[in-house]
């Protein structure tokens, strides 16, 4: 994947901001699925599902390979972790801050 880390973050969050895409991602993280099988699970056209798969692929969350006439999609666990890790870092800042507040409040009692 190319582009700055900001572009990458935008692509990740955009990809995850849609319920169908999150559902597709859950399925392909569990194991490789053909796009045809995926499309059968949704009340929308094959083209629409294919579009969702393409967004996930551009965000680096999913990879595709060709097997005969089938397109097989699988999820990239590491990429999914990186979104969560951004919020984990903020959590670390907050945990430190709250520990200091707690210390200040308990020291005086």
């Amino acid at each position, binding site marked *: 994947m190319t582009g700055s880390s900001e572009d990458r973050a935008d692509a990740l969050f955009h990809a995850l901001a849609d319920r169908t895409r999150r559902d597709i991602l859950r399925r392909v993280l569990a194991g490789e699925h053909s796009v045809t099988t995926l499309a059968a699970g949704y009340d929308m056209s094959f083209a629409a599902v294919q579009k969702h798969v393409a967004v996930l692929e551009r965000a680096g969350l999913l990879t595709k390979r060709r097997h005969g006439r089938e397109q097989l999609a699988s999820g990239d666990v590491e990429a999914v972790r990186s979104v969560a890790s951004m*919020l984990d*870092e903020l959590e670390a*800042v907050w945990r*430190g*801050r709250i520990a200091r507040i707690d210390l*200040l*409040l308990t020291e005086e*009692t």
Partner: protein
Amino acid sequence: MPVTDIAKDVENHTLTITAEFAAPVARVWALYEDPRQLEQVWGPPEYPATFVDHELRAGTRTTYYMTSPEGEKFAGYWDVTGVEPTERFTFRDGFAHEDLTPNPELPVSDCVYDFSATEGGTRAVYTTTYASAEALQQVLDMGMEEGARSAIGQIDAFLARG
């Protein structure tokens, strides 16, 4: 540990942290009203914070800076948007230039600090929302070191409590 819940909303770039403190709401509120107490908890010990202007009144601007171990200053500001004493205050948290004027090129986050009484003291709910994933990433890029150091500060505080 005082942190009781953490909710991460990836879609809305929001982090909500809930903490319980063994002190009355009025005491916790007093901490946020007093710049001298606030600067003791805002930044990690290695990056001491200095609050220059701080009133905790709607329509005011709080300014502060943090000093790195190398002596470099990182400034920030709060535009206080709402204050309901001892219950809640809201502000927009941004980065500032060294002269403490806001730096509009860097992201701003919307913060809601909410306090309520519990049997044992105070429940504080801190909500921080970033406008975009890009903003969140930018803040993290800038605060990477702070985050790592906070973790160490947290362990120190934990040990000090015994």
